[in-house]
């Protein structure tokens, strides 16, 4: 099924509703109400084709990869390397060898910080981040800074509710010669801001600065072309793009990966070992010590097929439309504070009420079948800067509908009424 590309559908919304049939989890009741899953920014639900790919691998092909001379091992190796090629195509990498499989975005960023950063940074260097980074694109750089004596610098966010996104007017002044790496998120998991990744990378590259993009919130929601973006590294997870948990990838430009030391040592990454030393393989194997997560890799590839089948540009329009609709409807609620830009946002909205804490909101909404997320969203410094301790977040994906936003708004109205007493 291809709701948004191909032949025009008489009612595009009806076509998107058909997508829901692909996701088994959605068809259940919670507390006697139909599940309204608005927590896809934390993890997306999985379509039947992805679940089937995973069980098919375990039922038919399961065997350890590489160095295998028997039939199953060859099949498993083909499936694993096929998945690498599929993921490479998904982000338009120049070569499958530019894709390193990891546990997810967090490990991908840690790999870059530890391996590239450990080999290239020294005291006096500056790591440029932004004020909207998730802890996963902040703490690995803090650890690197502590280890090397480098310091951290941040591109500020603009506006009391960060409605202006990044302060791009300051970028030139921040990109001083001491800056060796610029790591930023493509889409903010709290603000819904879509950062202009290509122009940020161009500005950095013009000064010889290495770029690392956190793609956790963008990868499943819009077309991603690492060569068009012009980044050196792009980190992402499968589980936020309709794929399985436990696997993700690091895209790295070949010249960088080939020059980097290993991240972890073990089997699979070596060329030759003796008792005191070892030589290692080229990338990507150099960075994949131990038995890789080949089963989930096959399901990861199935998720790539699924999303391309839906048309990723159409997914981006769908998610943005829902988020803007939610933003407009929520802004009518009394005492609500909405974060991030009003328009051109990614598929999520975070908000806070003056008198009702996010955890109480989430507990009440759960009774209405709504799955929301409340808390600091791994954005503690940003929350502090905005004078908040927590927000409630509703996040949208291919299977969400405008009617579900009405359920959200009605539930929030009920909660506000209850707490107003």
């Amino acid at each position: 099924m291809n709701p948004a590309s191909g032949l025009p559908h008489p009612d595009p919304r009806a076509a998107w509703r058909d997508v829901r049939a692909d996701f088994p989890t959605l068809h259940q009741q919670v507390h006697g109400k139909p599940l309204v899953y608005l927590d896809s920014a934390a993890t997306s639900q999985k379509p039947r084709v992805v679940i089937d790919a995973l069980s098919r691998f375990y039922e038919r092909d399961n065997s350890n990869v590489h160095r295998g001379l028997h039939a199953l091992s060859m099949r498993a190796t083909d499936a694993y390397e096929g998945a690498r090629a599929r993921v490479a195509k998904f982000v338009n990498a120049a070569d499958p060898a530019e894709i390193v499989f990891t546990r997810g975005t967090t490990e991908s960023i840690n790999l870059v910080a530890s391996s590239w950063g450990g080999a290239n940074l020294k005291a006096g260097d500056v790591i440029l981040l932004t004020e909207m980074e998730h802890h996963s694109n902040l703490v690995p750089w803090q650890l690197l800074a502590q280890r090397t004596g480098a310091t951290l610098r941040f591109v500020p966010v603009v506006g009391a509710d960060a409605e202006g996104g990044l302060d791009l007017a300051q970028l030139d002044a921040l990109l001083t010669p001491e800056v060796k790496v610029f790591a930023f998120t493509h889409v903010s998991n709290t603000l819904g801001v879509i950062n202009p990744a290509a122009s940020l990378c161009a500005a950095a590259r013009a000064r010889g600065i290495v770029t690392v993009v956190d793609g956790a919130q963008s990868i499943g929601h819009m077309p991603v072309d690492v060569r068009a973006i012009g980044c050196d590294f792009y980190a992402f997870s499968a589980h936020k793009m309709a794929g399985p948990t436990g696997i993700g990838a690091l895209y790295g430009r070949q010249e960088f990966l080939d020059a980097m030391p290993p991240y972890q040592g073990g089997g699979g990454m070596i060329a030759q070992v003796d008792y005191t030393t070892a030589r290692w393989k080229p990338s990507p194997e150099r960075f994949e010590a131990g038995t890789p997560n080949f089963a989930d890799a096959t399901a990861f590839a199935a998720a790539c097929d699924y999303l391309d089948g839906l048309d990723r540009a159409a997914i981006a329009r769908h998610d943005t439309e829902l988020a803007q609709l939610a933003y407009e409807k929520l802004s009518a609620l009394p005492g609500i504070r909405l974060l991030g830009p009003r328009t051109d946002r990614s598929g999520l909205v975070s908000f806070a009420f003056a008198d009702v804490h996010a955890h109480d909101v989430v507990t009440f909404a759960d009774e209405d079948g709504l799955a929301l997320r409340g808390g600091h969203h791994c954005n503690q410094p940003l929350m502090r800067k905005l004078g908040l301790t927590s927000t409630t977040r509703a996040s949208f994906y291919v299977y969400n509908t405008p009617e579900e936003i009405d359920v959200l708004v009605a539930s929030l109205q009920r909660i506000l009424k209850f707490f107003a007493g």
Partner: protein
Amino acid sequence: MSADLTELYQQVILDHNKRPRNRGTLPTANRVAHGDNPSCGDQCNVYLRLDGDRIAEITFDGSGCAISQASASLMTTQLKGKTAAEAENLYEQFKDIVTTGQPPEEISDLAAFAGVHAFPARIKCATLGWHAALNALKNDPTTTTTESHTD
């Protein structure tokens, strides 16, 4: 609204959340302790003025959900004037109430928290202030938490 939810957000709790008692710092405090549940972001400071073994004054501040704030507020009203041993005893009663849902034998405002037991994820919210208070009584400066790896 479900019976469980009405039971969780009782009038007593809503009232303490809206009009917290003994909220703020205590300039005369001789004991302070801090509670922090990092994964949900709830924080609670408890300030005590101990007079011998007795809690002469107690206040709290911090931020968090209605359950954590109301619990800390109600706790201050219960602990004022109590000895350390009495405070520990009250906490044991409170812990029983929030984990079993059984009201205490004696009539007590603490019974308002019986509804928490139906929401196991919220027990840590109800107990955070208490843990901070017990640490303050023990003069234990470490930040306490009621979260575990399962939260």
